[in-house]
């Protein structure tokens, strides 16, 4: 299964993950 998030955010929003990285519920994905 897959989850797609689509969202609006300030242009300086930064992802804190990389492609292929394993993540857990509640783990930081990104911040402004």
């Amino acid at each position, binding site marked *: *299964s897959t*989850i797609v*998030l689509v969202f*609006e955010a300030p*242009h300086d*929003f930064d992802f804190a993950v990389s*492609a292929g*990285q394993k993540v857990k519920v509640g783990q930081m994905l990104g911040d402004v």
Partner: protein
Amino acid sequence: LVEAWQNTPTKWYPLPVAAGALLLIVIQYRKRSTAREVVVDEDGHEVIKLKGPWHVHVIGALPLRNLSRVWGYLNSLELPVWLRPIGFRVYASIFGCNLEEIDPQDLTQYASLGEFFYRKLKDGARPIADAVLVSPADGRVLHFGVIKDGRIEQVKGSTYSLDALLGVARPGFPAPTSVEFPEHTMEEVNHKHFAEINGIEYSLQELLGTSTPSSSGASTPVVDTPAYSDETAQTAAKKHGERIDASVPRDQYESETVAEDVSMATEVGIRPMAARRDSFTSVRTKPGNNTFFIVIYLAPGDYHRFHSPTAWVVERRRHFVGDLFSVSPWMAKRLENLFVLNERVALLGRWKHGFFSMVPVGATNVGSIKINFDKALRTNVGKRRDHPVGTFTEAVYSGASPILNGQPLPKGVEMGGFCLG
């Protein structure tokens, strides 16, 4: 019969495998021609269709939805108690499940593989990070980035349309309008400002994270009083790192002016609103903002309940009846438009920075998507004549919280999950 069984000579003939593949392609071709009738766009909009190498077409010809339902049925069969610990340990070792963090830990309590698949985790197993956006699920990040020209990159060289994924800008919708919200008149806000999620009552402050120590800096002691003496409420609140202001009895909340809550909501950028008049017909970003996306793949062994990735308000959901291709990275690389072909539930709403949506996408083995606050939702149910593949049914959640005109979700709260079949 014995005579026939024993003395009849057995002759072996090679079955031409190519004939089988050819049959599947013919079935696929017939299916595609009918599909074209259903999803062809009169206004010349993009037609979403099965594209990819030949073996993808072969897979496309398989009766995936029926396979998924049979798979779901088999996994709902109750297993003998003695077989459960052995069976689930084998499953866990094959798919890499961590049995230390599941709840309940006693494997005999899971009556079927489907129940084990939809297992819960222990309290505190997933701490919520102090960031505006956290992962909604256990899984692997497939890709992420900024959406340009309304297209999302699926893999290098292949994109799919945001509009198709979320069902906006479709023919028959009113002309696109921005996602701005009309101002609220005060008497309209004098509604009940509570919302209930998973049986736990939240005030607006708790829902929008304005009362959590991390965002407001104020430490709110958790005190066990009659108003919140509900054990589950306390446990759940602790589990998600949220603190319920238990020191204030509920009726006092009711007596406070709600205008304070309105300013609270405004403070975190989510404005209360009356029922929307436009119908999410277009996603426009404010100056200085971008539209971002991230795709997370959940492997079969992963924890399959998903949680709220941020503090947001879900206004409506669009259930797309679709196919159930596998969504594994292998298939994502080969099948274009995978995420707009598959059955999915697009949850549309807003957070403090503007538009926010979360789209759980089903797959062959997990075609059933559950949303805890949407009891009416049924996915992966028989072929509904009136909802051919590629169309969607829509429901709005304005009843959940009239002041916010939607279902408010704090960061980290469990929202639902994927079930087998």
